[in-house]
């Protein structure tokens, strides 16, 4: 299997979408491929940064406009659900060891 295919599996493993066999293959590959280890570390860092990106609250004027279009008028606006209340977040550590990342990365990805 090429590194490109392993990287597709590394991505899928971050999302919990690999089989046990695939996870074992990824783990074994990361033991011997520094480039894929660095790639996995970068992906984990990116994932954390993307998940943590702030989102402004839905403006009240927008809620008013939409509710007017629904036909319930410009009455009092009920509080909307927060992002955190709808979907839980999986915390991913931001600290990545770059020097010899194999053990760190494989532990972050979860051993098979």
């Amino acid at each position: 299997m090429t590194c490109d295919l392993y990287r597709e599996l590394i991505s899928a493993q971050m999302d919990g979408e690999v089989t046990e066999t695939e996870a074992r293959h990824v783990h074994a590959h990361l033991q011997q491929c520094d480039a894929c280890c660095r790639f996995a570390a970068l992906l984990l860092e990116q994932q954390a940064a993307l998940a943590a990106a702030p989102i402004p609250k839905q403006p009240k004027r927008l809620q008013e406009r939409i509710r007017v279009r629904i036909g319930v008028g410009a009455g009092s606006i009920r509080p909307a659900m927060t992002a955190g209340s709808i979907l839980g977040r999986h915390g991913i550590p931001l600290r990545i060891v770059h020097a010899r990342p194999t053990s760190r990365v494989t532990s972050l990805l979860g051993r098979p």
Partner: protein
Amino acid sequence: MLSGMTNELDLIRRCGLGEAAALDALYVQHGERVWRLCVRMTGNQTEAEDLSQEVWLAVFQKIGGFRCESAFSTWLYRVTVNAYLQRRRQAPPEDVISPDEMATDQRSSSEEHLAANERAARLRAAVAALPETLRSALLLRVNEELSYAAIAEVLGCTSAAAKMRIARARAMLAGAVAEEDR
């Protein structure tokens, strides 16, 4: 859980009959979810507001045709992504605005935060530069935490294609960030 689903199905049924209070309740339940995806897809608050309105208008027009064959949230994501793609076909994207400009939270201007903001801005620019199909798949996974099967349903592709799109998006981001670091 079951009663929550029953309530939602009842709401959807009443929405299909044009009951304004039911539409309003559905909007209250899911408004923030749609808003988040609109902001992340457009990267621009003004455009996200327009898109969010278009999405809800489409929801209200199409909900009578919702057959409960998928989760309502999946259907809602599909309507959102389709409205966004429709918009992109008609007009180029507006400028991406940094979350510091958009978000209401005030952060400290310490060096650490400035560096983090700079990294975040670079990453956001790289995300904005991704092809639409890859970006949609990535955002639905990373920010909305949808499974590959659900993403496939939203985007109208196979799970294998969703998996490949996400991996490709991540690889492109990694390449873009590594390029900037050189």
